[in-house]
């Protein structure tokens, strides 16, 4: 028994020791759904963050200190997001890149604001994230009120006189995107035939699909994540429907095609212009490819979020979140996504959405607007 206690003490002491060694470094965090149904996106965030930390350390670190990465898992659950945020804040971590799900980013941001942490989300598109006038939030992606407009424009142009249905998964992201799309459609004088919601995590959509069939829907817009969208698509094709599925940016992972297989062909979604094709990202994309990672979706956005913070901290000469924030909002930053500038709320000034289409081989590409 005594020796057990001794071992315990030694372990504890070694932990305390290593903690003091690390104090020489700057710990930054990346937080997102590392587990759960959205874990493919968590992987994107983590890949981007790890690559940035490795690159930054190779280049001498930030403020002459090495970076260390803390990885937080919120499983896309608001409650878990809040508790991981409190943990990050209590560790005195000055900066977090995250989260992915809007329903996680929003509650987490309040804990970060109280705990003095600067938060840049690479992926949460719900307008509310920056609309609450918190001092500590920035985002390097677009907003659903822009994304919904882009989707609506495409629908109005290409589906004039056709029947449209809008579905959403009741999450902050899904419902928000569906509402924005509906609003933009109605403004253009376009009335959807059906507006319904389902539960995130549902597997059986046969009943909804039969309803789409009854109403002869030509295009269904899904405000939701790729797993449910994939199942809806599969069940539509099983029931003999040729309806086209369209969704938002939560479709930009190859996992979608692993659910649908070749059925994915023709499925549409909105997302920013492919960051992998930007000339500023070329060198980094090569690095990822060399590691066998496809930096798709929000991988490069996460990298850019960290770049913004690192440059801001370097210029401010401190990691103090409030001071860094002031510097970031005042300046313009060279990132792999190009030059980024932020408005007073924390949204980026440059963002456009384009339409992507899946093919039957499990790849997606921007639709050439000329066609």
């Amino acid at each position, binding site marked *: 028994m005594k020796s057990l206690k001794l071992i315990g003490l030694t372990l504890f002491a070694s932990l305390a020791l290593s903690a003091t060694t690390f104090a020489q470094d700057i710990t930054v965090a990346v937080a997102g759904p*590392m*587990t*759960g*149904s959205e*874990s*493919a996106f968590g992987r994107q965030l983590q890949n981007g963050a790890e690559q940035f930390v490795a690159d930054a350390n190779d280049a001498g670190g930030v403020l002459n200190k090495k970076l260390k990465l803390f990885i937080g898992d919120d*499983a896309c659950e608001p409650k878990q997001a809040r508790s991981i945020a409190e943990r990050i804040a209590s560790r005195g971590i000055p900066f977090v890149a995250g989260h992915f799900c809007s329903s996680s980013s929003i509650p987490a941001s309040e804990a970060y604001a109280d705990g003095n942490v600067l938060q840049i989300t690479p992926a949460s598109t719900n307008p509310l994230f920056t609309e609450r006038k918190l001092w500590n939030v920035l985002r390097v992606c677009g907003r659903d009120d822009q994304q919904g407009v882009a989707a609506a424009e495409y629908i109005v142009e290409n589906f004039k006189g056709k029947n449209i249905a809008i579905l959403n998964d*009741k999450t902050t992201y899904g419902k928000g995107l569906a509402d924005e799309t509906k609003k933009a459609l109605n403004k253009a004088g376009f009335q959807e035939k059906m507006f*319904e*919601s*389902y*539960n995130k*995590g549902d*597997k*059986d959509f*046969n*009943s*909804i699909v*039969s*309803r789409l*069939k*009854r109403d*002869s829907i030509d295009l269904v817009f899904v405000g939701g994540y790729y*797993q449910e969208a*994939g*199942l809806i698509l*599969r069940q539509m094709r*099983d*029931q*003999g429907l040729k309806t086209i599925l369209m969704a938002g940016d939560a479709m930009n992972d190859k*996992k979608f095609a*692993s*659910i649908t*297989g070749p059925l994915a062909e023709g499925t549409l979604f909105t997302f920013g212009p492919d960051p992998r094709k930007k000339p500023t990202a070329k060198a980094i994309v090569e690095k990822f490819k060399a590691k066998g990672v496809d930096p798709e979706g929000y991988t490069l956005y996460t990298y850019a979020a960290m770049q913004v913070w690192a440059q801001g901290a370097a210029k401010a000469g401190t990691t103090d979140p409030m001071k860094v924030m002031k510097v970031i909002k005042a300046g313009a930053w060279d990132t792999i996504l190009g030059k980024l500038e932020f408005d007073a709320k924390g949204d980026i000034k440059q963002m456009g959405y384009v339409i992507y289409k899946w093919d039957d081989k499990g790849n997606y590409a921007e639709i050439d607007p000329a066609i």
Partner: protein
Amino acid sequence: MDYFAQQLINGVVLGSIYGLIAIGYTMVYGIVGMINFAHGDIFMIGGFIAMITFLILISLGLSAVPLILLVMLLVSMAVTAVYGWVVERLAYRPLRQSFRLAPLLSAIGMSFVLFNFSQVSQGAQAKPIPPLITGGYTLHDSGNFAVQLSNVQIVVVVTTIVLLAIFSFIVSRTRFGRDMRACEQDQTMAALLGVNVDRTISMTFVIGAALAAVAGMMYLLYYGLVDFFMGFVAGIKAFTAAVLGGIGSLPGAMLGGLAIGLIETFWSAYFSIEYKDVAAFSILIVVLIFRPTGLLGRPEVEKV
């Protein structure tokens, strides 16, 4: 009319899967009087084993679909049955003479163990497989609405009916079924008359797990993916089905499963999809107010 027929097909298929899982709940309740909360997770394990078997068979270069399905079915039933046996042996048998809540708590614990185990060992992402059974029939085409019955749906329903028939035969006609019914009525008396109670209970868990494995495989074939969390929702629904049908009654479990499947489907067919779970559980409450023992349940006679 066509629309109604299509929704009826959707509901019956969904209900069959719920029913298959519900049988496991009802059987265990009938014999040991406890709710086996780990049963939903046994169902999930069954789905995973079918998926793993599929991947192994594909990597071995097998391409005959009927053979693949048969091997998947047998392997997942066999392996999942072992899980069922182990769960009973580890978590329930030592507590059988304990107070009533003890096995219930250990069942909830077991459920956490199983789903965390599969999350850790299989990863947190949904695992999809390509559609194995494709094609189907157009039953009726009225021009703007075609009633479709896919082959997967036929397989799910037929498998359910066949298994139910085999299973009812075992319970009502075989020696083992008689032992089971004897243990259900009075374990001490059954033991005195030479029934091996431990073995009978073990076998009940084994059969329940095997049926759950079939449900898991049907789920995999029908929806095309499995994830570590699927046992939770499906388990709750199936448990509801068992209670609705009258817990302890086998036909009741099947009937309850069908009822829940149909209510969910028809509610989302004609009313707001948002409230389909509310509808299913409201009907459960109404049924239980008027028939506290469920649709086919017999009131329990207190033994003096």
